[in-house]
């Protein structure tokens, strides 16, 4: 029972995530929205990937530029295993395919980690960058394993399911992704509470101290890297099941950058930050990219803004409210937040308008597209929309500065109160 009480948040999240796709359910046709399900499956896979990245980044202070290598190689391993199962060479339930990916990631994490974890800090980052390029290049050279440009394709519909499910529909795949995402997240969460996980934190904080309490920091890094490879590989295995293809994109630097973006935007400090960051990044990538040519720019700007103004990430920002929440004064912040909202929206609007106007005069024009808002075509050559954009941006910025000052005062006062209250109790 106490297990239930302690983990109610996880169960709640699971319930919400199971129910969520029904918001997009087409009741007339009686089927799920394939787009929504694939998007959510992608979030699930990328969340595992980002969490495993954070085992290095947040937990062990190791900035890797090649984490996708472990994800991608896990995916390739899983793809080959599926094809072997299909061919009848080996037997493995569909549900355990991600585990095959995980073992692949574990193996490559062990091998590549031996090299990468000889160093820490910048040297580690450079080695992982090199390994990423190395594997990307190898992916186009070793046809047998990587399948060249075309990659390896699979058919996920096997007759080996333990549950009698054939995984023909995105809904069934989504459920499998969800199950594995929860298993992987729970295991990674537990890993932070083990001696190895704790010593990874310790070696991150002060590797020399770690040595003088009896630990070999290099061994700690290596084991942490290997385990991160295992979880990244599970993500890779799920990726194969969703898309039924794995190409060298999965080991690319761009894929590695995705994990880094998600972790920075979500926050590396806590455990759940990367999940939050993943949701934002995937939505921008898969949602906004349908609407705008400039989606990558939005991701980039968001990343820069977060690194500059909120290095603790979204989860960290939420965490900052904890003392005020504990003091029961959170509602005193509602009004200041509401007051900051209009100028913030104005800035956003002005910025988006400016970016889109630019993008439509260049890429858009080349593609023969027209910039339309609510069905009305906007003339990108007329000065009016540009003027509006600049005005909104400028006025919004001035307005936000004023509100921000008021917000700051309110915030500091509340923090002060909260501190006193905590001290008194």
């Amino acid at each position: 029972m106490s297990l239930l009480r302690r983990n109610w948040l996880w169960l709640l999240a699971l319930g919400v995530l199971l129910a969520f796709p029904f918001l997009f359910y087409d009741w007339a046709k009686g089927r799920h929205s394939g787009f929504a399900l694939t998007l959510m499956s992608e979030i699930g896979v990328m969340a595992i990937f980002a969490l495993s990245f954070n085992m290095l980044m947040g937990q062990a202070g190791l900035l890797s530029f090649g984490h996708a290598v472990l994800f991608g190689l896990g995916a390739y391993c899983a793809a080959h295993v599926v094809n072997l199962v299909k061919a009848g060479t080996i037997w493995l339930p569909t549900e355990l395919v991600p585990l095959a990916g995980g073992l692949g990631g574990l193996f490559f994490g062990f091998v590549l980690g031996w090299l990468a974890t000889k160093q820490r800090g910048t040297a580690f980052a450079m080695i992982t960058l090199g390994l990423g390029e190395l594997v990307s290049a190898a992916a186009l050279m070793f046809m047998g394993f990587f399948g060249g440009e075309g990659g390896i394709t699979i058919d996920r519909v096997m007759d080996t399911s333990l549950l009698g499910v054939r995984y023909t529909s995105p809904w069934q795949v989504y459920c499998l992704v969800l199950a594995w995402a929860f298993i992987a997240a729970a295991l990674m969460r537990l890993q932070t509470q083990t001696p190895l996980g704790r010593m990874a934190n310790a070696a991150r904080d002060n590797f020399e101290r770690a040595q003088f309490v009896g630990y070999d920091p290099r061994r700690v890094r290596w084991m942490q890297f290997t385990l991160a490879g295992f979880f990244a590989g599970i993500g890779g295995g799920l990726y194969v099941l969703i898309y039924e293809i794995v190409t060298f994109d999965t080991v690319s630097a761009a894929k590695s950058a995705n994990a880094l973006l998600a972790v920075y935007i979500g926050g590396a400090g806590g455990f759940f930050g990367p999940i939050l960051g993943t949701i934002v990044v995937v939505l921008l990538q898969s949602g906004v990219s349908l609407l705008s040519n400039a989606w990558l720019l939005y991701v980039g700007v968001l990343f820069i803004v977060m690194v500059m103004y909120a290095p603790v990430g979204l989860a960290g920002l939420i965490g900052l409210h904890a003392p005020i929440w504990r003091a029961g004064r959170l509602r005193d912040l509602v009004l200041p937040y509401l007051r900051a909202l209009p100028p913030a929206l104005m800035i956003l609007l002005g910025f988006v308008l400016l970016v889109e106007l630019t993008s439509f005069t260049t890429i858009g024009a080349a593609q023969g597209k027209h910039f339309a808002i609510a069905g009305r075509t906007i003339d990108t050559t007329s000065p009016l929309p540009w003027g509006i954009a600049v005005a909104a941006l400028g006025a919004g910025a001035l307005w936000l500065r004023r509100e921000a000052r008021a917000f700051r005062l309110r915030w500091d006062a509340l923090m002060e109160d909260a501190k006193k209250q905590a001290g008194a109790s």
Partner: protein
Amino acid sequence: MSAPAIELRDVRKSFGATEIIRGVNLGIARGERHAVIGPNGAGKTTLFNLISGRFPISSGTITVNGKSTAGLPPQEINRLGLSRSFQITSIFPRLTVFENIRCGLLWSRGYRYSFWHLLGGQKTLNAEADRLLERLKLRDRRDLPAGLLSYAEQRALEIGITIAGGADIILLDEPTAGMSHSETEAAVELIRGVSEGKTLVMVEHDMSVVFGLADRITVLVYGEVIASDTPAAIRGNAAVQEAYLGTIAA
């Protein structure tokens, strides 16, 4: 009597062309409280770094608990039963005070690199860490990130991390440096308590601490031992007076 806890034979250390430690011979008996004193730049901290394996020695031999430390990395020397603190506070700033102590305990309690034990469930281990916190008078700081402690508290925590693993040889590098008078007194009491029945070696500048705690004192000047004797004998030693103590005591 068994082999000395630490034995140095003709230990030398050079950085580039400069010889910092110039042929040190020193035996530290088991159970002794031993202070190393000397003017700034005499090589006291370097000597600690050599004994604890932070730097390799250029020549000579060092044995810890009867075993040669040649070629051993710091963690393996630590596993021989030698633990040290640092002149500049060295803790795990982002971990809580409790976690800091627990990290000091982990290896000696056999957890090694385990990723299958959940620390929350290790009752004996956690109780042990809490007992040590009590002793360090850091109980009410238990769940604070160690980086937020006051300087004196961080120094106490560092001593805690150093002794947590139960090493029988403890090296403390200027444990009371930068402390107020009352903080120093508290630190001395703490050190006296935790070094009970163990071998203690410390570098210290505060002569009241040195003469109050040490059973034996070694005077290091320009990388050489000019005297190693009881406090009373050191006080009366003319060479020491001239080289070092005289400048303070005069």
